[in-house]
């Protein structure tokens, strides 16, 4: 069907287009416009040029701190989550008993929402820290490692099932050939398994990077940025700028645009670099 009468084309696409335009396209374009204005409502705005972008960094240090916190968090969590997930996947593809139950257990936290996860771990961390007379909001470092542990608990199972699919997709002949050639298990891992699961690595890095950068619910529930916004990540800082105080909507929107460009850049760079590591088929 290379051509379709217009009325049918409209029937198939219009519901999606209308919803997309209302909830994404207009808000997106309007958002870019408003980042150059001072406004309190969408209809009442005054052009101020790039001053919101400057104020995002100069009015206070929150945005800069949040950026540093987020980048550090993304780096640490991407490495840890993928290393753990890949290790679990290796262990669960050894055909030992109980594999299915283990997989079920490890994957489960992924289905629990971020807000609920945040409060579960808040209880646990505070329960441990109370023995030292402090709680999770005592220092941004506690919040940082708390979030890292939380995110590992949530995401490792998800990435693990992707790695399992990748490992199971390796042709058995390759493994057999390597064994006949006398390769030990470390050589097999290094020369066959890891290169062959590179596509899964691309996917998992992509998912963990984007999830880490956009993290909001867990951050809000676990520490809400405490102490003094030192553990607030970018998404939470933007939320606070918009809704925390009056007259900062324009700055919030400017921060949001920077955040968007930043995420887009990271995604593009990440996809390019890991694609180049994949084996050409």
């Amino acid at each position: 069907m290379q051509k379709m009468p217009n009325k049918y084309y409209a029937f198939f696409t219009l519901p999606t287009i209308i919803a997309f335009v209302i909830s994404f396209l207009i808000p997106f374009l309007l958002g870019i416009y408003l980042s150059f204005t001072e406004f309190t409502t969408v209809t009442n705005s005054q052009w101020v040029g790039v001053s919101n972008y400057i104020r995002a960094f100069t009015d206070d240090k929150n945005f800069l701190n949040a950026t540093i916190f987020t980048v550090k968090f993304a780096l640490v969590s991407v490495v840890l989550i993928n290393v753990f997930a890949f290790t679990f996947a290796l262990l669960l593809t050894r055909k030992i008993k109980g594999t299915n139950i283990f997989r079920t257990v490890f994957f489960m936290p992924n289905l629990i929402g971020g807000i609920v996860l945040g409060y579960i771990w808040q209880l646990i961390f505070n329960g441990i820290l109370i023995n030292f007379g402090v709680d999770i909001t005592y220092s941004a470092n506690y919040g940082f490692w708390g979030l890292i542990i939380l995110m590992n608990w949530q995401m490792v199972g998800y990435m693990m099932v992707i790695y399992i699919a990748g490992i199971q997709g390796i042709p058995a002949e390759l493994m057999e050939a390597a064994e006949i050639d006398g390769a030990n298990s470390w050589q097999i891992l290094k020369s066959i398994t890891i290169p062959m699961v590179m596509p899964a690595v691309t996917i998992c890095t992509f998912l963990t990077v984007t999830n880490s950068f956009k993290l909001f619910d867990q951050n809000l529930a676990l520490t809400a940025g405490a102490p003094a916004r030192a553990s607030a990540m970018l998404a939470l800082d933007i939320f606070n700028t918009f809704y925390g105080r009056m007259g900062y909507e324009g700055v919030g929107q400017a921060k949001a645009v920077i955040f968007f460009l930043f995420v887009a850049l990271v995604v593009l760079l990440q996809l390019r670099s890991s694609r180049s590591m994949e084996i050409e088929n």
Partner: protein
Amino acid sequence: MNAKKHFQDNITFLFLFILAVLYLTPIFIVLMNSFKGRFFISDAPFALPNVETFVGIKNYFSGIAKTGFIQAFGYSLFITVFSVAAIVLFTSMTAWCITRVKSKVSSLLYYLLVFSMIVPFQMVMFTMSKMANIMRLDNPVGIIVIYLGFGAGLSVFIFSGFVKSIPREIEEAATIDGCNPIQTFFLIILPILKPIIITVAILNTMWIWNDYLLPYLVIGSNYKTIPIAVQYLQGGYGSRDMGAMMAMLVLAIVPIVIFYLTCQKYIIKGVVAGAVKG
């Protein structure tokens, strides 16, 4: 060699078993605390309930009353079911249409939708919630439109990938037999899409059921979904009812665990398929 492998397998099993117990511990701790009095939780969350601290299901009653949990559950269920249904129906229609009809409009639409996937929610949250407000979409029915708009990117992308693998001959045969495009889609294509529909439905269910910020901004002041109800319990400083909180966390987890254990096979398959395509 065999004995060595056997030994290694046992070590691996033991390791995984301990890990699995650790994995489940946080949930058990919350469950255990949900039966303790509200003042016995924060100080000693790892202590089992005893005669003094055990309060039965009192926390559940107070939590349900404080948060309006029954209503929240209803809203969450309504919004999730109908949004997912709308997303599956409309984005599969769109994906089939723009994949098959090669035109400038089709590719523009496709690229815009794919583009929307990398835009973080914070970029549009303020303007989108104002739009929803102006267009009277700030209610549990209207929010379905918002979810359709936001879910369209990933869903169209996944459906399009699948549609490309369906042979055109099937549709051509249907056209020769006198089917118009609407009949062709609903009678021929939709049944073929079934496996990928499950994937798209599961990915969107996981997202919408757990979503906090979007419903909070769009309908949160009048209608609380489960995540909003849980966050609402946080309350002002110091006034938090930990007992009610624990009970609500348990009630928020139970439906997910039931859903997971009944459709586990589809969920894991769906997640893998969605990740590989997405």
